[in-house]
């Protein structure tokens, strides 16, 4: 018994619930029996992967749904043996090169070459190319991205690459220009609501529209999250109530907690406590940029407009530094300290004004 999010995943391009015009365009794209390299990008929970799988099904038929997992072995130039888990069907292979960290270049070079160099044996009624799906391309190292660009041109006859990314900003322009970029925006709140309603209908449940809206707002327009939350709500309490409490993800709660700590007291001692919270967030795999975003969102609530700008600009600056640097905690803490300094001054001034 799968979770709703996986159970009710659409499998056909035309059955997709939103961005239907885009789905139609994609269908016409593959009907020409060929397509260029694709770079699919959009926020998490917008349905990138779902859309791609639909596309592949359109291209190869239901055979792509017969998936198997394989572990592939590679040897780095420094004689280090690395393994990577791949998901493949007869027609495509999906890999997440960032799993091997800095050795992603090796994976890309070897794997893509392997796949591209082998021709389809049974080409009757089949496509002449295989598809390689690379996940999280924006997290690839620069080396790997450069390795990719040559391969893309060289083996274009035998393989197509579908690159999936959250944002193209960290994909090098050389790759961007070699691909057809497809942006998949996050569904709007109403779209999320409609999806939730359809899912609930399929499950035989009635979902009050207020609750659906509440969930969609809470989920940050992330459909996956919305569906998971919805299911969690059902587990929590059924039949649904319109004013039912929507369980927020723990990490979001935690960020909020941290933010309130920062607002409650500005002192070096508090800074030390905040640090522990930040560490906890990082340990639990919350991406630091999301921590930044979450904190900023919470912290600016109490600020006046001028300060909001100031804080936001600082957050942006430290977030940028975080990306350039190694240790996220340094930059998070720097931001927190900065905010504390600004906020304390602001408070003192306002108190001073009051008297």
């Amino acid at each position, binding site marked *: 018994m799968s979770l709703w999010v996986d159970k009710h995943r659409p499998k056909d391009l035309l059955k997709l619930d939103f961005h239907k015009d885009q789905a139609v365009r994609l269908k016409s794209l593959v009907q020409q029996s060929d397509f260029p390299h694709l770079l699919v990008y959009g926020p998490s929970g917008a349905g990138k992967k779902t859309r791609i799988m639909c596309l592949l099904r359109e291209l190869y038929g239901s055979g792509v749904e017969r998936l198997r*997992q394989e572990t592939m072995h590679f040897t780095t130039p420094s004689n280090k043996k690395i393994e990577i888990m791949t998901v493949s069907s007869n027609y495509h292979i999906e890999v997440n090169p960032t799993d091997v*960290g800095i050795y992603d270049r090796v994976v890309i070079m070897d794997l893509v070459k392997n796949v591209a160099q082998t021709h389809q044996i049974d080409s009757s009624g089949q496509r002449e190319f295989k598809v390689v799906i690379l996940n999280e391309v924006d997290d690839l190292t620069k080396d790997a991205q450069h390795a990719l660009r040559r391969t893309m041109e060289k083996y274009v006859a035998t393989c197509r690459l579908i690159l999936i990314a959250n944002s193209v900003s960290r994909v090098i322009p050389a790759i961007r220009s070699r691909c057809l970029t497809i942006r998949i925006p996050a569904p709007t709140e109403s779209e999320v609501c409609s999806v939730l309603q359809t899912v609930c209908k399929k499950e035989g449940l009635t979902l009050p529209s207020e609750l659906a809206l509440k969930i969609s707002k809470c989920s940050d327009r992330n459909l996956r999250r919305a569906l998971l939350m919805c299911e*969690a709500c059902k587990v929590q309490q059924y039949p649904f109530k319109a004013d039912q409490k929507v369980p927020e993800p723990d990490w979001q709660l935690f960020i909020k907690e941290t933010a309130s700590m920062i607002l409650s007291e500005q002192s070096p001692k508090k800074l030390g406590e905040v640090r522990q919270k930040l560490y906890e967030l990082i340990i*639990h*795999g919350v991406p630091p940029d999301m921590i930044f975003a979450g904190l900023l969102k919470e912290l600016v609530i109490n600020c006046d407009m001028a300060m909001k700008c100031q804080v936001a600009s600082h957050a942006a600056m430290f977030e940028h530094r975080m990306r350039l640097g190694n240790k996220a905690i340094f930059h998070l803490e720097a931001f927190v*300290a900065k905010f504390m*300094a600004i906020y304390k001054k602001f408070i003192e001034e306002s108190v001073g004004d009051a008297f």
Partner: protein
Amino acid sequence: MSKSIRSYFTVIKKQTTKIADDDSDIIPESPEIRVKKKKQTKKRRIEDSDEEIFSPKKKKVDTEQKSAHISPKLKEVTITDLFGSGKIKKTESLVVKNKSEKQTEIGIHSDEEFEQSLLELDTIDYISPGKVKSHKDNQEKDIAPDEPKSNKDVPKVKISPPQLSLTEDKREVKPKKHHQTETKLKEKNDKRTDNDQNKNSKKQNKNDKIIEIADDDEHDEKVIGHKINNSSVVEKPHAINKSKIRKRDLSSFLEEDDDHDTSFKKKKHDDSLNESALSDQERHERKRLSASLYQKYLNRTGPKNLGAKEIPEGAPDCLKDCAFLLTGVLDSFEREEIIDAITKYGGSVKSSVSKKVTHVLAGEDSGPAKTAKAESLGIKIINEDQFLNMITELSKKNKNKKSNTNDKPNIKIKKSDKNQSPQDEKSKRNHEKTTKDKSKESLNDVKKEILVSPTATITLKNDKSVSLKNPIKKERSVSPKANITLKNDKSVSLKNPIKKERSVSPKPKIKKEILDSYGKLKTKKSEEEVEQIDNVDNSSRDASLMWVDKYKPQSIKQIIGQHGEASNVKKLINWLTKWYVNRKAKLPKPNPWSKNDDGGYYKAALLSGPPGVGKTTTVGLVCKELGFDTVEFNASDTRSKNLIKEQISELISTTSLSGYAKGVTGKQAVTKKHVLVMDEVDGMAGNEDRGGLQELISLIKSSSVPVICMCNDRNSEKMRSLVNYCYDLRFSRPRVDQIKAAMMTICFKEGVKVPGDVLSQLISAAGQDIRQTLHLLSVWTADPTLTEHDKLQKEVQRVKKDIKMGPWDAIRKVFSAEEHKTMSIIDRSDLFFTDYSLAPLFVHENYPQVVPHCPKHEVLDRMSKAVDSISLGDLVDSRIRSNQAWSLLPLQAMYSSVIPGQQLSGHVGGQIQFPSWLGKNSRANKMSRLAQTIHAHTRLSTSGSKSSIFLDYSSHLRDAILNPLIKDKNEGILKSLQVLEEYHLLRDDLESLTELSLWPGQRNPSILIDAKVKAAMTRTYNKQASALPYAPGAIKKAKHLDTDENGLEMDAEDDLENDSDPENDLLIKKKKMKDLEKASSSKEKPQSSKGKGKKTK
């Protein structure tokens, strides 16, 4: 050489005969002089009255002895013999001649004169009562010198004026080494006033003197005499030393002389000392005297003319090799001043009379016991002025030593010393010629003059003394010198007239001095050469050695800090001696915590301790002492498994023939007593020594000889296996004062002056490393500018800086406002470089604890600036690591350490924490690994990326699995298993999921599950053979590999960071261990629950 002496003697013999002829000329002595003499003696008498009371008999006895001495038969028993250990045999013939004359003298003298002469004799023969101590130095000296010198002459002079001159002359001419002091000369001069008056001699020289002396009052005389005295005394030490040390046998008269010199002060005590048997009365007298002395000591005043004189500027180390004993109250210096001066010039001050003491510096009221002992040891007793002269003389000597290297040092010295001396030299030579001519014409006259003239005698004697000394020195020294002296000797008779002629010059006394010093310098020179040769011998050997080797302990006792009963040396000796016995007696393995283990069980000893505390030295000396031959292997030898097996085991089983090499013969020469010394065992690592330690251990197990291993860090990973087979001897650093004492000795030996406090600082700066301390000291001595206290102190500071600092110490300094005051920006960035990989982490970890010294409202502002800088530092760090741009490190130092330190300049409020980033980072890595596994497993049914597992799936999946179990208990099992199957999750993944989704402050939902339900669920899970898209075994393997992979990742990260920091490595290991534990525990858990389930069934 001896020939030269003989030839000298023969010349003199001839002279004596001549003198005998001239007796009549010289005989007359002025009554004035006599009166003077009498006065003096009377004075003395008055002063000496106590003694006279109790020792008249003695004196008589002594005089008898004296006469006996004079008589040829009893010659052997003379007191001079006893004291001078003299071999008068050499001069026998002369003595015999004297004797006949003396006998006649004795026969002639009148009663009154006899009494006086007896007195004199007494003083000469040490039996004369000591002078009362209240005598001033000057007085003492004034009177004293004439006694020893004229020991036999003076009485004779008084006995019979006509004969006096005769004997005197003879004396003078005699080759005896009697050193003539100027007082004597004066006396003679005085006497000669008679002569002159009577004879109307032509000599202007004498006239001058006469005039002078006649005009001078007593005091002046004293002063002059004193001056001369000083110079002569300065000369004497050398004569004495030489004679004592080198030619005791050759020149007994010299010693005699010395004895006279040294003894003139405390005759009384000589008396008491020399008299083996004392009468009761005498004892009582002595007691009384000592009591009175003590009273005097109690009441004694300070220096009378404090500040009247100044201590002359001397060359540094001019008093080197001199050891002084101070006694009594000096005339114009405080005791401390003198001590300071002595130490300043490299001499040492002793507190008691011993053989080491070279000079006794006696003042007024000097301790009789000390002086007496000094006399008995033949130590020179000098007074204040002599001491001052000594400084100037010796420093001059030092200078000359440096400047003179060729064969004409004498002349040069003269030039530098005295203006007149070159003239002297010339005139002497000229006169050698002229006198040769003259001598033919009026040889008799000239000779008379010579003999009469005091200057002549002086030169004569000096020359003689020189000639006597030189031959011996010539054994080593350059021979030309000897020739020169010989020449002088020969020319003595010829030279004298010159002086008479030259006596026209207004400063006859100075001339005397010059002459004195001439001889003096010569002797000195030759002495120096001997010393130099000695030094060359030694220094050529020593100069090439480092101090560490030069002053290496030669015996066990010399090892610093190893004297106690429980010291390692004792333990090692004990262990080594009992080794063979212990092998037979099978001892149980001792408790590792037992304190008084003698290591009998162990076949090997492991000496561990920091470098430079004497481990190797200890082993070497202990083995030497116990007669073991050492077979040593240290880090410079390859000590791989094979080599140890083949070479060392062979070496150990052989017998040693080293005894033959040492000259031991017979059975003892061949020994089977070996010790295998494995030095620096902690250095047995790397490819070279692969398997060496294991082989060493097996060698120890099978060894038939003792094995001694040495290492620095006993607790290091490498030593862990070896430690179990070794008797543990830990060397700790010796205390500072222990090292300091030894260092002081060495400094003294090297003539280096390092203040005590600086030395202690140096030792502690070097971390009580004896070797390093020695090296530093020897470096200091190489730098001549390092003499001032302040400079040395600075140097110590510099040394301190080189000592390694840990990050804990460094981080305190980074934020310390105090330290910032004295530190430059470079110094501060150096703090970062104590460990550039850890320092930024330390700074980041500890900055919130810092209490900056600034207004309170600024604190947060500063703090934010500090972190801002830290975050910039991280950017630099990332650039450094990714681009290998190590040249950016100084920039990182600024951002990550210096700027935060400056912003938060204050003090660290709490304990310095170890950077938590390292731990947190590894935890984060672990979590991401878990997420990755789940991601991989659920890949087929989910679409999201790894972070979506973290953020969204983990908690919902967990709930989907656990909630049915919690709510429906056993009925929910199927439901939850369905979820697992759907997502292709393994049982283990459930644990990971709970871990991933658990936040601090939350309750672990799996606790809510009934243990029975859990067990049932596991059972059903195991029963079900669910089809997985991946091979679970492979996955398990993959999981392990996964961890490996993660390890690799970590390694990669490390590579990225180029982080050689061991902590990181350790963390990786720990983490792996944890993982394994986790894995095993998670595996065990179901099993145990299974067991429970069975039980319940």
